[in-house]
């Protein structure tokens, strides 16, 4: 099978003082290059565990994750992470935060002036080049998250992993950042996995929405294909039948069908044709 990113039957069991906890069971997901995939599900369903396993920050109990046929065993810049709370070093300026990543990733391949240009290029992608010398505490939450995205993009990752990237932001800022994310995805064509709680956000940004059942032993419940042509405009979509249909499917899953993992739904996971949204 030729998949760009192959999350193959992964299970994860945590061993805690109060016994073992099976977080994920046989989660299986194939992602093509350039695809934008959202993971959605209720809190505690193991979305972040999946993301951390792909990032290499957690290891799997069973199964494996393969990126271009190579098994993932440790974290690396080819799978850059955008953290929910930006995770900028408060003691480094905006520029230096990105520089820390760029210098480490492109050590020996870029010279000084190339590194400098590359940092500014990535800051300008997220419209933060004007604040390069600001310290994190001097800029707003939305701007910090932009810098977090710039840092991740600067690593030229094969896969961009976003862990509820806009969850901590107010609605207006979130909308701006969603638009920026779409713009960047269009320009760079990154493969993206994004965790979100926001149904509208998932439909607006994604090519596919992966809905996970509730834990413990969470798995992929259903996948919705979002066949809305790009570029997408949030205002126009509000009246769009396809948009509302996808939205409806996700809401149905989250608020009625989600309670227990149901076998019929899972059977269709590997074959997108079966579970594809019939919005078209």
């Amino acid at each position, binding site marked *: 099978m030729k998949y760009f990113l192959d999350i193959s039957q992964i299970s994860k069991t945590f061993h805690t003082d109060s016994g073992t906890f099976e977080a994920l069971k046989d989660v299986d997901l194939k992602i093509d290059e350039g695809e934008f995939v959202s993971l959605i599900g209720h809190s505690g369903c193991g979305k972040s565990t999946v993301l951390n396993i792909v*990032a*290499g*920050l957690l290891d799997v109990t069973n199964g494996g994750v393969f990126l271009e046929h190579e098994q993932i065993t*440790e*974290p*690396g*810049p080819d*799978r*850059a*992470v955008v*953290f929910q*709370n930006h*995770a900028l*070093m*408060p*003691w*480094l300026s905006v520029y230096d935060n990105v520089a*820390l*990543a760029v210098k*480490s*990733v492109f050590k020996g391949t870029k010279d000084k002036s190339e590194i400098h240009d590359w940092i500014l290029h990535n800051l300008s992608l997220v419209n933060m080049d004007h604040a390069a010398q600001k310290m994190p*505490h001097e800029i707003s939450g939305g701007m910090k998250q932009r810098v977090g995205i710039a*840092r991740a993009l600067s*690593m030229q990752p094969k896969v961009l992993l976003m862990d509820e990237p806009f969850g901590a932001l107010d609605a207006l800022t979130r909308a701006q950042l969603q638009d920026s994310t779409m713009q960047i995805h269009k320009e760079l064509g990154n493969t993206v996995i994004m965790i979100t709680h926001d149904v509208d956000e998932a439909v607006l940004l994604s090519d596919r929405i992966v809905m996970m059942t509730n834990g413990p032993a969470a798995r992929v419940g259903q996948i919705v294909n979002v066949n809305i042509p790009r570029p997408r405009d949030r205002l126009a979509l509000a009246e769009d039948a396809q948009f509302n249909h996808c939205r409806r499917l996700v809401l149905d899953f989250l608020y009625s069908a989600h309670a227990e993992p149901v076998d019929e739904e899972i059977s269709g996971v590997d074959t997108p044709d079966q579970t594809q949204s019939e919005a078209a």
Partner: protein
Amino acid sequence: MIAAALSTFKGIGAQVPKLMAQSVIPALGISFFLLVWHLGASNIVTSLGQFPGPAQVWSQTVSLYEEHVEVRQKADRFYERQEKRNAEKLAKNPDATIKWRSYTGKPSFADQIFTSLYTVMFGFLLASAIAVPLGIVCGLSDRMYQAINPIIQVFKPVSPLAWLPLVTMVVSALYVSEDPFFQKSFLNSAFTVALCCLWPTVINTTVGVAGIDRDLVNVGKVIKLSASTNVRKIVLPSSVPMIFTGLRLSLATGWMVLIAAEMLAQNPGLGKFIWDEFQNGSSNSLARIMVAVITIGLIGFALDRCMLILQRKISWDKQAVLR
């Protein structure tokens, strides 16, 4: 009357600008303390006479300063005479071997202060140079922590004075030199201080390093920082506040222990000054000891402030409220 005073006191506190309040209120506190001290002291009579009140202590402060000036003059005269003698010797016979001796008179109170300061800084820096790296290693590696923690926990509660005899014996056994750069008594005191300065710094550094934000640690892993860059760019900056907490605790205990060690081992310094005055038993002794007590307090306070200033200089977090 006190209630009335307090209410005017509160009224003043509300009206005057912050700067005034910051200087007036502590001044009132100090005056009250001096008053209680004065009244209390006049009721205590010891075998060495009346317990010294603020006035006697002040007069002894002045006389200690005068003695210090006198000692300095004596030393200066000694060196002057020596120079003259040697010059005359050389004039008579250019090949004459001349000897330069340093002044060996009784050290003044100021000399004792400097000896103590020098000793505590040496011991403290020595301990910090070991404790900070050790704490970083323990904070980064659970296994190292588990290996070292029992040792820390056992030695931490030991009074460093218990080490003093061992330190003394080890120093005199190992530090054998014809022309010693450091005096043995200095090394004994400094090592004893170092032994007690280790633990708070190790423990606080470990806690600080182990408590770094998980996300920041993960960033370091994702961008594959080298171990040394990781320590420089992530570990050290984020644990600076805890490292300084440890350093300040260390320096404060080190200073306390040093005085005790100097008294016990008769090593030069403020501790020896106190012990000598106590043995001397003149009518001024208690007041002179009191001067030393206050000096020790002021120096301890000043050392802590210096550490705070240093922390402000080094730490990235200029907003942090430091106490």
